[in-house]
């Protein structure tokens, strides 16, 4: 018999992933433990007799071998590998203990590096989107006229996306500033 999985709506942003950690830790305290992270819904198992501390890590682009090495190292340090999201975000957990919750990044320097890595990816995403969007716009406007009915909504969506990514970039920058000053 397979174990029963429960769904919970997940909303999270890369620049505020600590919120998701808090959320997972609260649910775990209630007996609901993350099993698999999804885009809109994450899956949980119910077991009131345990409680975990969850932590997220951002490590994109690890190949099969390096991913295994990575998991082994974290597991040696007492972290159970739970799930990954888009192959870049990795979820770990360890049995909850009272007192300060264990962290993956234990000094300012490495945490800053970690935030910078996230910020860089947000920046690159934004730039590539701006380039793709502008080239498309130039092409469309050169070849067709009177398609504003389509262009306008698309442009609006893009502007929203740029805005969101820009916000994420600035937010992550503020986080870096806060821990380094």
């Amino acid at each position, binding site marked *: 018999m397979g174990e029963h999985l429960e769904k919970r709506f997940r909303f999270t942003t890369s620049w505020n992933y600590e919120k998701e950690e808090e959320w997972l830790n609260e649910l775990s305290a209630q007996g609901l433990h993350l099993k698999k992270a999804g885009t809109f819904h994450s899956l949980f198992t119910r077991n009131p007799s345990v409680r975990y501390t969850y932590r997220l*890590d951002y*490590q994109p682009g690890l190949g099969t071998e390096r991913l*295994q*090495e*990575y998991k*082994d*190292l*974290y597991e*040696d*340090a*007492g*972290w159970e590998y739970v799930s990954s999201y888009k192959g870049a975000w990795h979820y*770990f957990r360890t049995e909850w203990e009272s007192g300060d919750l*264990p*962290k*993956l*990044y*234990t*000094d300012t*320097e*490495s*945490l800053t*590096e*970690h935030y910078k890595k996230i910020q860089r990816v947000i920046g690159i995403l934004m730039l590539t989107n701006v380039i793709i969007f502008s080239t498309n716009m130039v092409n469309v406007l050169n070849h067709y006229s009177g398609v504003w009915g389509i262009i306008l909504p698309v442009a609006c969506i893009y502007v929203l996306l740029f805005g969101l990514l820009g916000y994420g970039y600035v937010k992550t920058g503020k986080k870096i500033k806060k821990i380094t000053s």
Partner: protein
Amino acid sequence: MKSPQQMLPLTEAFYYILIALYKEPAHGYGIMQDTEKMSGGRVKIGAGTLYTALNTLLKKGLIDHYPMPEGSDPRRKMYQITPDGKNVVAAEIVRLKELLAAGEQVVNETKE
């Protein structure tokens, strides 16, 4: 490569990782335990900090992969310090001694 002095100062985590490996090749978990022991429990290196530090040290050529001894768990990667790594440790110790001497001198002079 850069001169050893250009790599300084080392963070506490980098310093302890390097001196742990100066003693003998070790795997990640061994480095964590040794660091905690050497610092009297003060410095605990988290998994994320250790993982990124090891990658940085590998990239800078201060540490290297250590060939796995026969019969050991092949999943546990081991690391060893390189001659460049030893030079950086030596340079850091010189720097720390200077800090210590300067500090102690000032504190002792102002005591009277």
